[in-house]
């Protein structure tokens, strides 16, 4: 009898949940399932989808030479941005965490690139990178007497240039997170270290870094996840070029889905992206015990 009658709790729960659950189903769960099904079809938006089983996935790994290439490019992008970005952010956060004047002002300035849209900021950097007349090329010429390469059109430099931009764009964000992490470290640790005669460098290596590892872990995991999905800056700066060296997984997915309208194929690619992200995140999770200090 109790089963048939909806309890007061259940009625309340459903009124609160209804909009949320509808959103979850329509915007999240159903599209996820649909995408799974779609990835098993051949569909050129016009006409009807045909079921082809795992053929899209097989094509991705056996016949499509560009797919391993874009995975590799994305990995290069991540290796280029994440470790350097984290190291720089830790350094700057430590500089800012001292008793200095104008701390608030520095923080405001550092954070400006973060609130800018990646599109407009990348457009600005495209101009900085411009061949011969760009600010960077002009400065290299007048200050160091070096002839700058064509940053965005030279296959040797294009990915490097995208990486430098991305580090610049995200620096302030990571600095703010590390500052919060630094402020969570109790001053008593440092006082004890000073009594023991530790110098600044020792304090940094033996106290700051170990106690900051939970924050480092968090920033590492989240920035790797978001770097796997890099798209805006490659779209604006290089359009995946030159010769495809800056074409990343999501850029290639965009081309397949929305330039060539291969919906099934692009869906399969999105699922591979998910599997890669999940695998990398799980591996990081498993290994956190080795180096992350929780206490």
């Amino acid at each position, binding site marked *: 009898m109790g089963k048939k009658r909806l309890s007061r*709790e*259940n009625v*309340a729960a459903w009124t*609160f*949940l209804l*909009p*949320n*659950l*509808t959103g*979850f189903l329509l*915007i*999240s*769960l*159903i*599209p*996820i399932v649909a995408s799974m099904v*779609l990835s098993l079809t051949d569909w050129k*938006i016009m006409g009807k989808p045909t079921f082809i089983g795992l053929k899209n996935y097989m094509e991705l790994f056996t016949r499509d030479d560009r797919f391993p290439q874009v995975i590799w490019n994305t990995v290069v992008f991540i290796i280029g941005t994440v470790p350097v970005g984290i190291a720089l952010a830790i350094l*700057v956060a430590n*500089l*800012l965490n*001292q008793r*200095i004047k104008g701390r608030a002002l*520095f*923080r*405001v*300035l550092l*954070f*400006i690139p*973060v*609130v800018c*849209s990646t*599109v*407009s*900021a990348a*457009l*600005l950097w495209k*101009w900085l990178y*411009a061949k011969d007349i760009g600010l960077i090329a002009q400065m290299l010429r007048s200050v160091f007497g070096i002839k700058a390469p064509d940053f965005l059109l030279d296959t040797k430099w294009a990915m490097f240039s995208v990486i430098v931009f991305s580090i*610049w764009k995200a620096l302030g964000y990571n600095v*703010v*997170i590390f500052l919060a*992490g630094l402020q*969570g470290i109790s001053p008593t640790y440092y006082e004890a270290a000073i009594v023991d005669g530790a110098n600044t460098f020792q304090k940094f290596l033996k106290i700051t870094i170990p106690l900051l590892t939970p*924050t480092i872990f968090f920033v590492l995991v989240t920035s790797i*996840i978001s770097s*796997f*999905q890099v798209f*805006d800056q490659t*779209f*604006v700066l290089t359009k995946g070029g030159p010769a495809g060296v800056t074409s990343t997984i*999501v850029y290639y997915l965009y081309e397949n*889905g*929305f330039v060539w309208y291969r*919906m099934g194929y692009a*869906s399969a690619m*999105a699922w591979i*992206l*998910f599997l890669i*992200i999940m695998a990398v995140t799980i591996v990081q999770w498993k290994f956190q015990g080795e180096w992350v200090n929780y206490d």
Partner: protein
Amino acid sequence: MIKSKKYREMAWKLLVYALLIFIAFLMVMPFLWMVSTSLKNRAEVFQYPLIWIPEKLRWENYLQVLEAVPFFKFLFNSAFVATTVTLLQLIVCSMGAYAFARINFKNRDKLFLGYLGTMMIPSQVTMIPMFLVFSKLRLIDNYLALIIPGIFSSYGTFLLRQFFMSIPRDLEDSVLIDGGGYWRCFLQIIVPLSKPAFATLGTFTFLANWNNFMWPLLVTNKVTMKTLPVGIMFFVGQYAVEWHLLMAAATMSLLPMLLVYLFTQKYFVTGIAMTGLKA
């Protein structure tokens, strides 16, 4: 001995300042160069050695951008979409989060686990079916296509639920004893006490939607429906290497958010620190 220690401290301070000023310079200089270029004429753009302040400030460049594209329409679209999405997402997520945090219903924890599971899935997975649905429903170039996908967020529900869990239950007990229901608890106690969480989620949702590029790129074709980032790329397509005009457009596109940021920067910074530590 004491003196040398003092000197060492001063040298250290100087080094810290020098490094910070250098980094702040790297952060800000691109923007100064952007504004400088936006006020030049075509000849000055290509001039060597470079000049920072042009002889005559050409504000006309900005007018030229305004004549070429409906900039204020882009601005309106961005503001309208970002505001609507933020308000609706806060309502939808906070209500759901309250049910997950406070009401005992069947399969609650299983359902919540399902939410957490979808958080790992990148937006590109759902993007393709969503695009197909919106185009079949002929909602391309319609505000609904720009707004609907942003209304719900598993992450937002999760974030608010965590915050609600940290609020002591005794506060609600008194309302429940007085005969009040869940709605009164939610509106009179939970919502007012959760202002910091709302500010954090709200700021993030607003910023993410304001700057969102890929989805609006897919669902807008008409110029008048484009948001700022997509509109700027449309302008780039027409004025490929007119750098003085492109930089005027970039300046105009960045200015509104920079102003909002300068007046509300406390929320941005504390918000990030909060999400960073909670997760």
